[in-house]
């Protein structure tokens, strides 16, 4: 297990370095040197100003040197300085990240709370009404582009019924966001539905596979009550693959998060990334790309470890 852990973490480090290299190269493909300076400080910038800009951000150095500088600063937890916001990227991320934990975290938990019991119910009552409803729902949700689902929710609950605001709460910190719970309902609901669509079919098939296992037959043969069987045997074993599922779905969840933030104007990482891309604020873009890569890789490593811890049959040599 220790050997596996070490190998897995080494792999993860390699992957993270790879992510930074790709993000950095893409960034430099977009614009470098004077062209970049012109984009940022404007078409009427004097050559004096352009020189200063290039010198300030070290854009005249060769790309490998710039990359090394970036990596070195990254190791010290410094992601650079925004071109537009007069703030360090760290400060921007520090401000936005907690709000995303609220949005993405709560919808992730909610979607699991729906997908797990429903998946088990579908497996137990296979080809019955519950199963058809669950499958139909997940197909329907999965087939809709995320933004379209969000907009339908807005059309129904904000425009027609006028129950809930169409815009997410605005504010620079979590407290301000939480102060307006009504505004949080629709963004969290739509992200929950999207995540549910990602999880539900997986949960169902995993529960079906478990139902066909010998230990379930043995437990039935022993005369255990159906309820005990489901709660103690099936539920626990069906939870094991959830760790893998969540870990591997992270990119999809973050993507849906970006779109949801954009639709509801939720002031989080996704919206910040989008705005940074539109305004050519490259340090912010690069910082967020690296952060998201880091979160994804960490999620996968944790999923692997969680899998090994939860399932004693899994042996890593």
């Amino acid at each position, binding site marked *: 297990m220790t050997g596996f852990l070490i190998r897995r973490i080494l792999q993860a480090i390699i992957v993270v370095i790879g992510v930074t290299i790709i993000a950095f190269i893409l960034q430099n493909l977009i614009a470098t040197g004077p062209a970049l300076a012109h984009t940022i400080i404007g078409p009427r910038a004097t050559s004096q100003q352009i020189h200063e800009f290039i010198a300030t951000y070290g854009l005249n150095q060769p790309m490998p040197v710039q990359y090394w500088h970036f990596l070195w600063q990254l190791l010290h937890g410094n992601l650079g300085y925004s071109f537009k916001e007069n703030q360090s990227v760290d400060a921007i991320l520090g401000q936005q990240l907690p709000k995303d934990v609220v949005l993405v975290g709560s919808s992730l938990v909610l979607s699991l709370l729906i997908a797990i019991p429903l998946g088990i119910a579908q497996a137990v009552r296979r*080809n019955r009404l519950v199963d058809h409803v669950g499958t139909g729902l997940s197909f329907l949700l999965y087939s809709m582009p995320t933004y379209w689902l969000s907009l339908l929710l807005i059309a129904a609950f904000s425009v027609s019924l006028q129950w809930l605001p169409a815009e997410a709460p605005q504010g620079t910190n979590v407290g301000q966001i939480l102060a307006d719970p009504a505004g949080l309902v629709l963004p969290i609901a739509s992200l929950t539905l999207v995540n549910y669509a990602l999880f539900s079919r*997986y949960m169902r098939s995993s529960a079906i596979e478990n139902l*066909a296992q010998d230990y379930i037959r043995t437990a039935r043969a022993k005369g255990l009550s159906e309820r005990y069987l489901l709660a103690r045997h099936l539920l626990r074993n069906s939870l094991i693959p959830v760790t893998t599922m969540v870990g591997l779905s992270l990119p999809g969840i973050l*993507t849906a998060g970006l*779109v949801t933030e954009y639709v509801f104007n939720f002031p989080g990482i996704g919206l910040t990334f989008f705005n940074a891309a539109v305004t050519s604020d490259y340090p912010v873009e690069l910082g967020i*790309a690296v952060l998201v890569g880091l979160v994804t890789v960490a999620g996968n490593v944790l999923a692997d470890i969680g899998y090994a811890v939860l399932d004693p049959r899994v042996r890593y040599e």
Partner: protein
Amino acid sequence: MSDIPATPSAPNQHTADGAVAIGQPLPTAAGTEDGGLDQAMPTGGDTPAGRSAWRLALQSFLDNKLGIAGLVLVIAIVLFCFVGPLVYHTNQISPNAAQINLPPSTRHPLGTDYVGFDVLGRLMAGGQSSIEIGLAVAVVATLFGVLWGAISGYLGGVVDSVLMRIVDIILAIPSIFLFIYLATVFKPTVGLLIVVVSALSWVGPARLVRGEALSLRVREYVQAVRVMGGHSTRIVLRHIVPNTVGTIVVNATFQVADAILILATLSFLGFGLPPPAATWGGMLSEGTNYLYDGYWWAVYPAGIIIALTVIAFNFIGDALRDALEVRLQRR
């Protein structure tokens, strides 16, 4: 234990059902209820004379109602998009300021959009590009991913580690972030969209095929080829890849659906094909501006046809998976 992948886009459904079909009388709805127990049975075995495994797979597919529904739907949508314009002539090039946002009428069965294009005709035109790009992405991504995965799994060792780390790196960058990145520099064209979406979609088939190749390379027939002096290229192309064809076909089907969804999202974020090119995603995202004005015909037709197409391809994929006995997710 590194092959844990769960392609979230292709959840594993009805895993057990298909196993019953091969080499046995045709399954009935009741007969498949407990199919899970038969899972361990190998494919083929004693195939009745005159019925190849492919024929049986075809039969199993034809017995799947949802699969047939999906197939019929896809054929209908393709006919609608590619044959429809031959019958139903509309102008989809030059805007018509006098005909903006007209409600459905006999002249315009689905009304007109914000620049005066006929919505029904635009659905057809938009479908052409959406389906073409979706299919192209599935083909390109699958070909590349399959080769990558087969080579990685067959060769193993250092090559495998390097190739799979590259896959991990690409998986770690959420695609939408990359799309936004790229689209700010390049002006989206059909070719560019195909390349970019494929460049991020090939990792799925690569992981799946690698997993299969890992187990296939120790099979007797592969070893026999090697003993007889068969080249690695021959083993990969003639023996490993053909044996993963079920996985490949099923995954490619899901990829068409995913590509259509990704394209729609990109259009919404402003990185789709620029007008006057018609795409479903573009229609839907433009239409959403009028969602609150009551112009339902600007929004719902595009949204519904995207959802229908995605569902149809998913139905086909699920039915194929059952028919070909593919398990997309292994642990």
